[in-house]
């Protein structure tokens, strides 16, 4: 795996004075720095930047709408309480993602393991997408959402996490490695196995 493609995180700006390439300021980091100095509005702005995404990710990680709010609030509360120790060794997004994964895993441990969905059959819009056609209506997208949630719940937890981070959150392999505290080389192989399991499940459910 090449190293150059991994550096696609921070965009660069040309310095006006010396023509040097300076990393563009990370707005998340700016907000977190202000929050660390006691500015609650900055932390609220940070939450609002990630709120929609994290509610969606939590939905796919825990698989129950009723528990999504709890997991997301616990995630942001943990971030609020521990932001003083954030040392910017990873991006704020990666740091928050790691906290979300921990809380989703805690949620899974605190509840009895549910059996993979038996007799699940993919909806027509999901089948259409897997056959290369588009899902157009909001209703169709909602059916796809429920199918994907059920299929992700059937995956092994480690596979589910890596699929969510890559496919849904769009993290790079390096960011996934940081969020899961894994060696960078392990991410590619785990993601490969996760996608194989996902394909198998989708076929099992009629995709």
């Amino acid at each position, binding site marked *: *795996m090449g190293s150059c*493609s991994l550096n*696609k995180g921070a965009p660069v700006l040309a310095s006006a004075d010396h023509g040097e390439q300076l990393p563009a300021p990370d707005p998340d980091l700016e907000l977190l720095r202000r929050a660390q100095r006691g500015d609650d509005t900055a932390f609220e702005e940070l*939450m609002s930047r990630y709120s929609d995404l994290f509610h969606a990710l939590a939905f796919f990680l825990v698989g129950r709408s009723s528990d999504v709010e709890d997991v*997301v609030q616990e995630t942001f509360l943990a971030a609020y309480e521990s932001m003083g120790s954030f040392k910017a060794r990873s991006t704020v997004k990666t740091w928050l993602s790691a906290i979300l994964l921990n809380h989703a895993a805690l949620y899974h441990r605190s509840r009895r393991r549910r059996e993979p969905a038996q007799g699940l059959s993919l909806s027509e819009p999901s089948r259409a997408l897997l056959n290369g056609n588009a899902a157009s209506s909001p209703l169709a*997208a909602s059916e796809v959402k429920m199918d994907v949630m059920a299929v992700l719940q059937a995956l092994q937890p480690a596979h589910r996490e890596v699929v969510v981070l890559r496919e849904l959150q769009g993290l790079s392999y390096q960011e996934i490695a940081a969020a899961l505290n894994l060696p960078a080389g392990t991410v590619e192989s785990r993601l490969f196995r996760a996608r194989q399991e996902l394909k198998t499940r989708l076929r099992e459910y009629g995709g």
Partner: protein
Amino acid sequence: MGCPHCQQMGALLDGELSASERAVKEAHLQGCFECTLELQELQRMSRLLSVALEAARHAPHAHLSCSRLRQRRLLRWSKVLAFAASLFFAVSGSLLLETGARPYSSTDIAWEQSAVAPQLLSVRIDSIDPVAQKLLGMRP
């Protein structure tokens, strides 16, 4: 999956290959039906997941604020305190019940009948001030 290149179709799709590795894979794809199918399947799966994500992002949810987080923290601590208090009362209650309900055992009887007990009791009574003994009705 027979072709060894198939395993890297995911990395190709994710943009995680270097320019040279990408060029090699793209050239390989021209003549490998298996890898082409694999890549196509991954793309469709990716599309399925992104449609699901978009739908989930639009689901309504509560507005988050710092005061809400602080309330949650307070609630968490009050739950912990309530649990600790109920544990304390449960343990102390069961200890009290056990002590109060303990039957008069043969050990107690043996102790009272022994030579030591009356002496100890008399020592304790004698050690009380005579005026106090009078007040308590222990002495005429």
